[in-house]
């Protein structure tokens, strides 16, 4: 505050100057023979009023803008400080609104709105082929083949460019150690297409994908750190990837996570890689600006229909080809709606906070008419008063904004810690969203100014005489703003209710995931999936023998409770996509199912429960008997829920149907992830399954983590010629899903709690004010013998009525607003009475506290004092 020191210094100098004048006068007079006392008295007399002189000189200097601002600020500070409760609550409300809204929106933005660092990511679509005849998730949608990709790449009218990618599990050998890695074969066009700039070296160029080009690879930032210790000299080093020597040409930046790769290698010659000759690939395309997605889908489907006409056997009858926006794949199709909804919720939170503060300022304004009247009577100009109010409002807004920014910063940091890796797009980065913070702060300042200046309107309207007369009149006049305050409170309650109901409904559906009966504790299950070298076991019998041997060896490991061979993975995935028909009704449309070839141990490993019949026996497996166990859902779909055991079904995997006899039914358990509904599933002996035995699933006696190392050693020994073995515990595989749900729960919980807190603050502040304003009336009533209960009742009734109206309006609003949630809620109804009841009860209870506590404070009013005071 140097300008302040300078101002003070100038004052002091003036004092010195004037004193010097006096002293010299005294000296002269004494030199002329006067006594000191006489000289001093005379000099002072002649000097006149030194204070007046000082003031006049100061007037000559003029009051600087800063000086008067400083004065206003000091006054404003004192005025706010004189009611610390008001200042604290208003600041807290503003801070909560700004902080929560900014945090939420930052997460939304980072995770949902702009998660991809790729060029024009909002126009990227993944081309997908649909079989509309299939109703269930499985087998309905697939990515595209090489031939299809070639056809689609001709659609340059609607697409700007294309990117073909093929992710696969690979192995990096370094220093004699094998690391399981994700290797993505990409077309030479991919790097320029997504417009990524490498951190080191260069990206894959089109010429790298031409035949005969030297083999190269681009490294992910993550792999660079983990495997190469962030060595900047990694570029031009040779690495051993999938038993092939490749030269590292570059390192991708941190956020680049195209198909969660560790390495990107150029796809060879028209994108036929050795591991995926003519197979499926992910084809992404960038839609030209302004082309509607409906046209994109129509043209794609036309190509699909042409392909089917040329080759009817290979394509579904009811084919449809669509471009799916990347972001829709991440969140689900009604993505925009979700986004609008969540943004709406964020905005609502901010609105609640602002209406809160507006309310408090209006309340405070009424209390200030007297003060303003006095100041005007003492000669303060209108502009001066308005400026004073402005400065006070700004002080309040500044406090709220500073605290809100701190909350937003801390909130984003906290969420970054909670945000599970790879849950949403791996590319997503959550960072404090500055434009939104500015918007929130701006809106708050606007609100505070708008309502903080409310008394100023009155100042402008009335003249001084009226002010002088009118303290009591002012109070009457101001009661006109009461309806505005009541509406604000009611609206706050309603908005909080909508927010809380929405959040609670979603939380209930998310929580279902944690409460789902999975049959087995995912922590105790491990999955081992061996990848064999190319053509190592063309003889399937030999492979089966090896897997049987591995199963027996693993079973004898200490700590292993049970082990099985299975195509599917418990909870996550029911197996291969297939179709089942009842033999007795051959012509009927089949049911899409997940089919798994299992050994008998799976019953215990997966914790399945038999409801009818029996499970597969060792004799079934060893004897290659065509018997099957189905789940309840499949029994229902086949319409044989009453007597499934003994029914004969035909299982179509590929083109050759096999006849199976149903011997048992399993109780439904999640088999397509925790959130999606149970798919129809069929289990058959692994020996009768047309595909190679896929994986071993192991259930440990305790936590499966400790089993991973012995398992790895055992499998390396018993399964020769593996490229690598994918070995994970089931809970780590479920973690992304669980993490996402935990995160969503935390986020929604914060929404709900913040809404509730803001409603509480608002109600409390307004009620406190009402009580303070009516202390005179309460004093009279108590002096006349009113009982405590009557007084509280009197004060609480108005608040209770407003809250009740708010709750009714909010309930109606929730019923309308949550309709858009329906597709997310799964089994939870949008009218779930438990959620509504819980929220209404919580809000009503909170409101009651906010109303009753200030009301009981009125009981402390001393009637005599209250009466004297007025």
């Amino acid at each position, binding site marked *: 505050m140097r300008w302040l020191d300078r101002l003070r210094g100038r004052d002091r*100098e*003036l004092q*010195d*100057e*004037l004193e*010097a*004048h006096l*002293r*010299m*006068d005294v*000296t002269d007079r004494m030199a002329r023979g006067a006594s000191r006392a006489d000289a001093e008295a005379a000099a002072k007399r*002649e*000097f*006149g*009023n030194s204070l*007046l*002189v000082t003031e*006049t*000189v100061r*007037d*000559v*200097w003029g009051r600087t803008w800063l000086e008067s601002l400083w004065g206003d600020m000091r006054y404003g500070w004192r005025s706010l400080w004189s009611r610390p409760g008001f200042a604290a609550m208003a600041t807290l409300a503003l801070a909560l609104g700004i902080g929560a809204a900014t945090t939420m929106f930052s997460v939304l933005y980072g995770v949902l709105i702009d998660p991809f660092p790729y060029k024009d990511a909002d126009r990227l679509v993944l081309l997908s082929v649909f079989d509309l005849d299939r109703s269930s998730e499985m087998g309905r949608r697939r990515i595209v083949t090489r031939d299809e990709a070639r056809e689609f790449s001709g659609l340059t009218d609607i697409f700007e460019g294309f990117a073909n990618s093929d992710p696969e599990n690979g192995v990096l050998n370094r220093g004699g150690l094998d690391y399981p890695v994700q290797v993505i074969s990409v077309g030479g066009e991919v790097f320029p297409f997504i417009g990524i700039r490498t951190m080191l070296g260069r990206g894959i160029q089109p010429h790298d994908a031409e035949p005969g080009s030297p083999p190269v690879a681009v490294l992910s930032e993550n792999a660079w750190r983990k495997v190469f210790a962030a060595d900047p000299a990694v570029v031009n080093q040779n690495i051993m990837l999938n038993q092939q020597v490749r030269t590292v040409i570059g390192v991708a930046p941190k956020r680049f996570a195209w198909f969660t790769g560790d390495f990107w290698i150029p796809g060879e010659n028209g994108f036929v890689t050795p591991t995926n000759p003519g197979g499926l690939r992910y084809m992404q395309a960038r839609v030209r600006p302004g082309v509607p997605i409906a046209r994109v889908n129509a043209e794609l489907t036309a190509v699909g229909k042409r392909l089917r006409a040329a080759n009817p056997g290979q394509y579904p009858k009811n084919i449809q080809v669509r471009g799916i926006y990347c972001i829709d794949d991440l969140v689900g199709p009604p993505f925009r709606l979700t986004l609008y909804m969540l943004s709406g919720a964020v905005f609502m939170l901010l609105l609640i906070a602002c209406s809160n503060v507006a309310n408090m300022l209006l309340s405070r304004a009424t209390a200030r008419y007297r003060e303003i009247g006095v100041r005007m009577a003492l000669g303060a100009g209108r502009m001066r008063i308005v400026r004073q109010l402005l400065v006070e409002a700004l002080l309040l807004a500044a406090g709220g904004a500073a605290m809100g920014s701190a909350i937003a910063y801390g909130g984003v940091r906290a969420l970054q810690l909670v945000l599970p890796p790879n849950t949403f797009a791996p590319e997503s980065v959550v960072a404090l969203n500055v434009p939104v913070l500015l918007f929130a702060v701006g809106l708050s300042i606007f609100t505070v100014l708008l309502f903080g200046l409310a008394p100023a309107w009155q100042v402008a309207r009335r003249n001084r005489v009226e002010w002088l007369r009118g303290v009591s009149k002012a109070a009457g006049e101001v009661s006109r703003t009461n309806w505005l305050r009541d509406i604000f409170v009611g609206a706050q309650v309603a908005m909080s209710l909508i927010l809380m109901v929405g959040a609670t409904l979603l939380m209930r559906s998310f929580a279902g995931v944690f409460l789902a009966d999975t049959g087995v504790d995912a922590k105790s299950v491990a999955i081992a999936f061996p990848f064999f070298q190319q053509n190592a076991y063309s003889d399937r019998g030999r492979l089966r023998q090896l897997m049987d041997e591995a199963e027996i060896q693993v079973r004898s490991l200490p700590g292993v409770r049970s082990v099985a061979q299975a195509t599917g993975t418990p909870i996550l995935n029911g197996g291969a996509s297939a179709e089942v028909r009842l033999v007795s009704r051959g012509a009927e449309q089949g049911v899409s199912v997940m089919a798994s070839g299992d050994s008998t141990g799976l019953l215990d490993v997966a914790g399945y429960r038999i409801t009818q019949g029996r499970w597969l026996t060792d004799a079934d497996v060893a004897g290659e008997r065509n018997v099957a166990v189905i789940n309840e859902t499949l029994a229902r779909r086949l319409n044989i829920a009453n007597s499934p055991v003994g029914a004969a079904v035909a299982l179509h995997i590929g083109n050759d149907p096999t006849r199976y006899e149903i011997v048992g039914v399993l109780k439904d358990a999640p088999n397509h992830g925790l959130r999606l509904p149970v798919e129809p599933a069929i289990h058959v002996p692994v020996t009768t399954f047309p595909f190679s035995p896929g994986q071993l699933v192991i259930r440990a006696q305790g936590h499966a983590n400790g089993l991973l190392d012995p398992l790895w050693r055992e499998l390396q020994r018993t399964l020769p010629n593996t490229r690598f073995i994918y070995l994970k515990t089931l809970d780590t595989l479920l973690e992304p899903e669980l993490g996402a749900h935990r995160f969503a729960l935390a986020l929604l919980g914060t929404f709900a709690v913040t809404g509730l807190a803001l409603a509480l603050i608002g109600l409390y502040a307004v009620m406190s004010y009402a009580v303070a304003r009516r202390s005179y009336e309460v004093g009279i009533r108590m002096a006349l013998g009113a009982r405590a209960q009557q007084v509280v009742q009197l004060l609480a009734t108005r608040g209770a009525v407003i809250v009740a109206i708010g709750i009714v309006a909010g309930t109606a609003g929730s019923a309308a607003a949550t309709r858009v949630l329906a597709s997310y809620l799964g089994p939870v109804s949008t009218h779930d009475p438990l959620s509504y009841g819980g929220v209404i009860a919580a809000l009503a209870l909170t409101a009651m506290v906010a109303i009753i506590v200030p009301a009981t404070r009125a009981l402390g009013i001393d009637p005599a004092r209250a009466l004297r005071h007025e």
Partner: protein
Amino acid sequence: MSTHEPYKNRIELLQGTLDMLILQTLRWGPLHGYAIALGIRSGTEDVLQVETGSLYPALHRLEKKGWLRATWGTTENRQRARFYQLTAKGKGQLAEEQAKWSQMVDAVAALMSRRPGGEQV
């Protein structure tokens, strides 16, 4: 003019005249406020006595206008005091004021010396 009752004959200063008197007093060199007051008083043979309530605001006003420059110094009695001195701008202003003043004095004198009625000629 040489009366010994200075208080009775004191004249209210004309607006702007004080500024000119201060500038005039300072033309021989820097002086502090007390000396300026004394200077004006003795220079007008006690007719004009400047009150501190007018003097200091005027000094600060002239300083603000840039006609005066103020520095802290010591008097012959080794008192610390604020000395004012004319700036170049102040000197120019003084010349201008003097010209205006003599014009006014002439004009006022011409009017005042004329006989009533004007029938003389």
